[in-house]
């Protein structure tokens, strides 16, 4: 399998990037070399632009000869369920869980963000806001008798967010609390695959909304009963 531009197996790819030097023929040639050295061929620089003195932006089209053996590719673990809507979720909780579902949420070490779970009458969403330590998050989960702990990680900066997340799982395990809560992460830079790898029950990427998170939580609660 190769990239498809306008013909099967033409391997056409669009690229754009910035090089840290002045816009001149030498830098443009460097951009071409850069692309070719990545393994592309037939490179055309379609657009060059000076960003400021010392930075030049390139848009390019090139051909890649890389060929993926599609049959050998294995998909990573996925979240498989059909998202319910607002009314169905509330009804489901009323009928199947018969009490409010408690979700304790925080943005550990990041900017403020939240999920809209507060709007669900059958969900008690406790939003601890931003910059909450893992210890406090767990304390509050205990205090509110939470069903789910939801971490929002909007900022992705180097390794720090991963360290914070693994610490949460470690503390839960050490306190023998891991099985008591459904633990999820949401935000850009998070994939379900990464979340599971770090020991969480689910990861919700950008593009997932409150209904997706709520559906997962309530289905898991019923499943675990």
């Amino acid at each position: 399998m190769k990239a498809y531009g306008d013909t099967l197996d033409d391997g056409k790819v669009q690229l754009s990037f910035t090089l840290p030097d002045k816009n001149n023929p030498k830098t443009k040639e460097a951009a071409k070399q850069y692309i070719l050295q990545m393994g592309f061929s037939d490179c055309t620089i379609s657009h060059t632009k000076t960003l400021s003195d010392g930075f030049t932006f390139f848009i390019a089209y090139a051909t890649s000869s890389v060929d993926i053996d599609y049959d050998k590719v294995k998909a990573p673990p996925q979240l498989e369920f059909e998202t319910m809507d607002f009314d169905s979720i509330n009804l489901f909780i009323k009928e199947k869980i018969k009490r409010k579902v408690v979700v304790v949420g925080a943005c550990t070490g990041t900017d403020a963000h939240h999920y809209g779970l507060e709007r669900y009458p059958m969900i008690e969403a406790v939003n601890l806001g931003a910059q909450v330590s893992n210890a406090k998050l767990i304390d509050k989960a205990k205090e509110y008798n939470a069903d789910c702990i939801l971490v929002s990680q909007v900022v992705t900066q180097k390794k720090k967010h991963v360290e914070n997340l693994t610490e949460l799982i470690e503390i839960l395990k050490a306190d023998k609390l891991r099985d008591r809560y459904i633990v999820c992460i949401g935000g850009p830079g998070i994939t379900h695959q990464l979340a599971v790898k770090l020991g969480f029950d689910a990861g919700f990427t950008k593009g997932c909304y409150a209904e997706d998170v709520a559906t997962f939580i309530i289905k898991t609660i019923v499943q675990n009963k």
Partner: protein
Amino acid sequence: MKLKINHKKIRKARELARMITRPVQEYIEEHTTISIERASLRLCGSSGATTNGEPIPNTITRDLSDKASKGLVKYYINALIQKKLNPDSLNQLIKDGFKLSSLPLVDFKQIQDKANQLVDTFASKIQGHNEYRRNKIDQYKNNENDPLLYVIVATGNVYEDVKQARAAAIEGSDIIAVIRSTVQSLLDYVPEGPTTEGFGGTYATQANFKIMREALDDVGKKENKYIRLVNYASGLCMPEIAVMGALERLDMMLSDSMYGVLFRDINMYRTFVDQHFSRMLHAYAEIVINTGEDNYLTTSNAYDKIHTVLASQFINERFALNSGMPRHLIGLGHAFEIDPSLKNGFLYELAHAQLVRDIFPEHPLKYMPPTKYMTGDIFKGYVMNSLFNFVGKLSSQKILLLGMLTEGIHTPFLQDRYLAIENAKYIINNICDLNDELVIKENGIIQKRANEVLDNTLAFLEKVSSLSLFNSIEEGLFAEIKRKKTHGKGFKGVLKKDVDYFNPFEQHMKKILNMD
């Protein structure tokens, strides 16, 4: 292109805002906070930090914690007089372990005289900045974009920020904002010195402000523009950051009366008292404030909750006016956050934007781009930003915070910022006079929507007024977030002013801003 506005309703909304803020204002007048005291010490010239990084104003506040309700400026001035030192030398003495509490107070007349001197020093510095800024803006006014293009940089390292800021200025932006390190709003001290590490942003420090200010003045000279510098005053140190912004000639500051409470879980009394003092400083230093109503739309359904934005704007406006701030400095905020799949969503965004424009005609409104529905599809994101730019220009917004096509993925690459600026400049120029050419259809979708939003806003303000602002926040009326009155960080730092409370800077600013 104007909406038909019901002026009676607008007047009613402003009346409600007055009623809502009145009891809060009464509370504010009777209180100070440790952050206001530290800010006032900074205005005297207190700065620097001890060897373990504690800022001298914090050291003083700790030493004199039982005297803070009397106003700490008195004690600092007392030491200047008795030790016969200038502020720099006194700061050094305190750094070396000297405690202000060890000195008895001299008679008040001496303190008042010295205070007058310090106020004069402060006044001339700020007036100098104000004049410089006014002249530069006037000199380069033909090179400004309309709306002003606002971009954000934040690498964590102020020296890297300078490079990105320079690039952004050369690419054509008018305003550069430096996002702060995310933990900063909850720190009860302002770090000292230039910083090269931050999480999700760069720390706001006076040294960092100075470095950026110099860099932007320098690139501004080359580009024949006055580049405006923005930072964020929100958090536990709002008054101190307001002081630093004034001293280093920043041009705009994020300053919201409720953001800290709702989104950072800072105690509401602390925030209300801090924002009053801070906004007096901003007004005095002719710094435009930006408010944070975009947050109501990112956390809730933008179509359903737009009335909370307008309500918050009325409340923010009233608090700012109560701080002596003229309307042309009140840069109320709003955003373009309706679900892009909503039929006629564009018409509703335009209705909302034009409504705010018409209700707040003198205010340098800040319009913020889509974030909630931005995904890894950068091409769709680029188009959404184009529609945002179109609405922003068409509805005559004053400050356009540029959307980045990669908003849903990462903090902006240099190229992302360039694409954003190029997009905005193209649209602004291409539709330049469209606003003058179009008339809004009577009883059409846009007019009807604007009417509906205004009515919803009035109903909401009536509810807040009947509950009181404090109770409304407790009950989660704003952004569906509940915050209890005495919970949240920083409540301990709120102090009732003693009968002999003394703050010459506050007195001076109140006089100049005609607040007496």
